[in-house]
């Protein structure tokens, strides 16, 4: 279980305070207007932002004193996930060991993971030779291969066209089921994940405004605010 309690972050022009829980193995979609604090929430869980107060635990472990590398968290960004001078396989391998010295078994694991995200045979390609969707699949493969149980996806598919975006969301749902990982994903198009997500969280003005199942969130009183947030972006 991921537990966030009154985690407060302050900047001169913005204050955020988050409280929410996510059950282990769930796929949680985070929606809300741009600038409302969705990315800040993920960055805080990943360890890139440190709250001045509050509590942040995953499976009972206090994450706050841990460096980003020590947290049980992997993250995929909207862009710039891959190092352009490394091949797809090497980019995935970074999730296991940054020195890139792999055993035979680890090589096989990388190959299998690339296959799982639909990229078999493309392991030698450099990011510049791949499409946007393929690059995001490589980033996803790296998050999976790292073996970390909590995966954060920060608007990972927003630059893809609608068809590809839905395919990628399906892939995420499938991988979540097979690998038993907990996934938090910020997304601008809630309808893409309405059938797949177990939980939907609406974040605005640096706060978790509502947290429930997608049907409740999308069908309730927040529907018009969510629609407005989506149309803004």
């Amino acid at each position, binding site marked *: 279980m991921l537990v966030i309690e009154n985690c407060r972050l302050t900047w001169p022009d913005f204050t955020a305070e988050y409280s929410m829980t996510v059950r282990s193995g769930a796929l949680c979609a985070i929606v809300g207007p741009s600038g409302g604090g969705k990315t800040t929430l993920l960055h805080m869980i990943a360890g890139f932002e440190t709250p001045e107060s509050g509590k942040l635990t995953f499976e009972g472990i206090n994450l706050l004193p841990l460096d980003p590398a020590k947290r049980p968290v992997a*993250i995929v960004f909207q862009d*710039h996930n891959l190092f352009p*001078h490394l091949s797809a396989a090497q980019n995935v391998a970074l999730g296991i060991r940054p020195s890139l010295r792999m055993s035979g078994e680890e090589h096989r694991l990388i190959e299998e993971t690339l296959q799982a995200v639909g990229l078999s045979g493309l392991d030698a390609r450099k990011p510049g030779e791949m499409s946007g969707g393929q690059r995001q699949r490589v980033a996803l493969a790296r998050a999976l291969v790292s073996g970390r149980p909590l995966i954060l996806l920060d608007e990972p598919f927003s630059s893809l066209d609608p068809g590809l975006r839905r395919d990628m969301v399906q892939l995420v749902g499938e991988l979540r089921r097979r690998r038993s990982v907990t996934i938090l994903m910020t997304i601008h198009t809630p309808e893409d994940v309405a059938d797949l997500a177990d939980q939907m969280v609406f974040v605005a003005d640096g706060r978790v405004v509502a947290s429930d199942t997608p049907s409740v969130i999308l069908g309730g009183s927040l529907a018009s605010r969510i629609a407005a947030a989506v149309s803004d972006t």
Partner: protein
Amino acid sequence: MAFAILALVAGGFIALAAVGGERPALLSIGPYLWRVLAFSIVQAALSTLLSLALGVALALALARRRFPGRGAVLALLGTTMVMPTIVAVFAVFAVYGRSGWAADILSLLGWRGEFSIFGYPGILIAHVFLNGPYVARILLDSLSLVPAEHWRLASALGFSPAHIFRHLDWPVLRAELPGLTGLVFLLCFKSFAIVLALGGGPSRSTLEVAIYEALKIDLDFGRAAWLSLIQLAICLTLMGILNWALTRPPTPHTVRSQVQRHDARNRSLKLFDAIVLSAGALFIAPLALSLLSGLDNILEIADADLLRAFLTSMTIAVLAATIACLLALALATAARRRRVVLRSPRIAAFYDFLPNTLLAVPPFALTAGLFLILRRFADPSSAGLILLPLINGLAALPFAYRSLAPRLLTAEERYGRVAASLGITGVNKLAIMDWPLLKRPFAAAFALAMALSFGDFGIIALFGGQDLVTLPYLLYERLGSYRLDDASAIGLFIVLVAFLLAHVSGRLSHAGD
């Protein structure tokens, strides 16, 4: 316009070669040529190596560290590009000369040995002083373009300092270093004022100095023509390689958010950076501060000579900047037309490459050739005032072109189709469509070209004398007569004007439209 520039350069060379008359065999200057060539290459290679070592180490240390005054340090690093070489010569004399600061300190410590700044030591110190900080500034800018997401990934994936160097820093350095190496080598290979003043005699001559000596001292035009041809061939080859090395995929764009590098916390790197920054400060600061010694005398040198030299320098700088910017505008417009309207990218690429090739042309040989043509039509005594702005303008053309050409393309992309549909062409197109986007980079290029010309001590060495004195020439005269107090004040004055112009240029370049 491109052909006019080529014809101008070719005409100058033909005139120079033709007046050589007997056309001396290359073999007759063989041993001399080898000596000059060997010295040019060795000093340029050593200067490049040391400049890159200092530049890379400083860039990495500054990328990792934040400290009070860092902004001022970065501004200082960026200004050495427009630091007049003759002023750098003065700084080397003031710090490392026989009666310089270093000698004073060593004497206080009881050292009684002899140390000569002439030859390799002085040349290398001056070249590294001018180029090392410039390399650091360019690399630091490129390192800051690494996407913030990569830094977050490095942090999340637990990269050690070695992994960060391998996956984040080295790809940037590898992309930048070939081009920078070529550029610094080219600048040092063509070095004139520094080698002339600090070489210590004819045995320490670069090709550029040898051409100057052949023209000014020996009046041997044939030898000057041969030396120029060899320098041109070497520099053009290097420019070709440079052009190839600089052609690389565009850097991915990212928001420049302040990301704290987590390798900054590493203890060994803290120590390493402290050593690098201290050594860099110890090398650069005295040379830079030596220029401030002129403050004491700056009011005393304000006489009629200084005013006349200042006005001459300003006039030449304004004319040179006008020539550079108008030529750049004409070339960039032609390149845009070829690239966008006529769909001839190869010819457009030729226009892009042409300004850079001017960096390879030996200015003395070109000046001498043009002088030989000009004396048939104009009073030879006024040739300096015509040729100085022209040659300085051609030297500033690559920088002006780099500033204007991208903006012209942007204007075409934004408004080209609208202009075409409304039938707006020619001067109207320039005034209505291009100028609003172009005025700031044009002003920036103009100020930079003025800064480069204002402090230049090159062609003036040929024409300078009683009738034609620029500020850098006045400084050279004062240095030659060991009037170091006057020289320090004049050097400070030149630097202040050049930096002011460069600062205006920088502000205009970074200002929004």
